[in-house]
């Protein structure tokens, strides 16, 4: 997923922080709308435009996935249309049984 405004569909290029936040907000909408949630994410492939931004990515990441974070692989790639972050996510359906 890329940073897209959920109200207008416009692409929201920004910093690694703003793009990552937007992607997580959209993921929340998408997952919670389908009976899952951020806590049910199993694996994330995080693509960033520069390895130098690794800690910046981690800072936002911790806010959205505070406990039992999913498995992850991060790599530096060239993302389409000048975006700085792209997340590719696998999540489980349903909610965890207590």
């Amino acid at each position: 997923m890329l940073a897209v405004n959920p109200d207008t569909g416009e692409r929201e290029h920004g910093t690694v922080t703003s793009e990552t936040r937007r992607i997580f907000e959209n993921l929340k909408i998408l997952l919670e709308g389908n009976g899952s949630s951020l806590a049910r994410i199993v694996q994330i492939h995080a693509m960033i435009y520069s390895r130098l931004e690794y800690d910046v990515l981690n800072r936002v990441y911790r806010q959205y996935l505070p406990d039992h974070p999913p498995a992850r692989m991060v790599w530096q790639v060239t993302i389409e249309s000048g975006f700085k972050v792209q997340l590719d996510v696998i999540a489980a359906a349903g909610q965890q049984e207590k």
Partner: protein
Amino acid sequence: MALARTIIEPRNAMLNVSKNRGLPHSPGVRIGNLLFLSGMVSVDPLTGEHKQGSLITETTQILENMSHLLESAGSSLKNVVKTTVFVYDMLEFQNVNDVFQKFFPVNPPARTVCGAQLSFGFKVEIECIAAVETE
């Protein structure tokens, strides 16, 4: 019924890189009977330190550590379904194959290999999806 999601960890705490370095990911996640492992780099199982070397020594160390993590979670290299391998230079492709041949001699898992820029001067990083052994 929703599948249970649990975090898996290596028995050897030295290899719990995400915890030891305070990174926001887990060594692996179990969902149903599948294990999703995070990307692994070469780490010394005795000290927990990064262990950079040649592509062959790094790949060997990663697959040994991966074997340990999988066995800690009731699986093994035999039950690996898919691996994704990142190498610093695709010229080393054949070296990846040689090490894989040793660890996966028969019916090797599905695999993707790409050239990528890795952190800390590592030459290779590997992640995998594996099945848990059930009766």
